[in-house]
C-alpha cells in the first residue's frame, strides 16, 4: 500500500473487470466482485462488464437455498456506494437468455458487442474471470 501511495494517485489507469461466468458453480464471479470492491478504493477509472453467462450474476430474485451457497447478489448494490458507475452488460448476452435490464439487481448500461469491443480497446488493464 505504502509503495502505491508514494507512486501517487496521479497515475490513473482504466481498469476493466470482465465477468463471463454464472454466479454459482464456480467461485470466479464472487472473487471477481471482491477484487472490484477493493479496486474501487484506489481512485482508478474502474468499469465492470457482464457478458455470456456472467449476465446471470445480476439476475434479480436469486434463491440459493437449494444449493447451500451464500446469495451475494445484493452485494452488487455496493458498487454504487464505491463510486463504480461504469457497469456494462452486453445486449446479445441478455437477449440470448431472455433477459432485459429490468431483470437485473442494479442499473446498468446495456451495450452491443460491437460497442463493448470498442470500450475494451480503450482500457489499460483488463482482468477477466
Amino acid at each position: 500500500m505504502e509503495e502505491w501511495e508514494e507512486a501517487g494517485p496521479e497515475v490513473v489507469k482504466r481498469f476493466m473487470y470482465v465477468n463471463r461466468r454464472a454466479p454459482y458453480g464456480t467461485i470466479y464471479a464472487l472473487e471477481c466482485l471482491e477484487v472490484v470492491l477493493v479496486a474501487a478504493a484506489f481512485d482508478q477509472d474502474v468499469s465492470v462488464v457482464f457478458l455470456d453467462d456472467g449476465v446471470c450474476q445480476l439476475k434479480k430474485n436469486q434463491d440459493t437455498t437449494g444449493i447451500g451457497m451464500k446469495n451475494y447478489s445484493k452485494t452488487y448494490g455496493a458498487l454504487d456506494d464505491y463510486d463504480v458507475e461504469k457497469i456494462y452488460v452486453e445486449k446479445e448476452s441478455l437477449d440470448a437468455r431472455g433477459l432485459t435490464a429490468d431483470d437485473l439487481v442494479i442499473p446498468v448500461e446495456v451495450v452491443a458487442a460491437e460497442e463493448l469491443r470498442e470500450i475494451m480497446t480503450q482500457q489499460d488493464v483488463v482482468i477477466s474471470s
Partner: protein
Amino acid sequence: MKFGILVNEGPFTHQASDSAYRFAVAALARGHEVWRVFFYSDGVNNANKLSEPQTDDRNLVSLWSELGKEHDIDLVVCIAAALRRGIKDEIVQDGFRISGLGQLVEAGIQADRLVVFGD
C-alpha cells in the same frame, strides 16, 4: 517492458500457472522485467509448500519460488483467497508473501502490462 502477472489457477487442475511461469521465464530471457506475480483464486495453491507432486513431475511451487529469488520477483499471495483455502503463513513457500488485493491493483498501475492467466 515491465510486466505484472496474475495467476488465477492452482498448479494441477489447469495449465494456467505453467503457462504463466513459462511466460515469465521467456520474458526475463528477453531482458524484460517481471515486477510482481499476484496469485489469486485457486492460484494461491501455487504457494503451498506442503504440495508434493510425484518425483517425475514438475513442481511449480518450487519453480516459482526459485524464479522469484533468482530474479527478485515479488510473489504475492492474496490473503482473502488464501485464508478460505487454508493457505497460511506457516505453509507458504519461501519467496512468496501473503498480502491484500491492493497489491494486484498496484501491479496494474505500476506495470506496463498486466497479463492474466486463468481458465
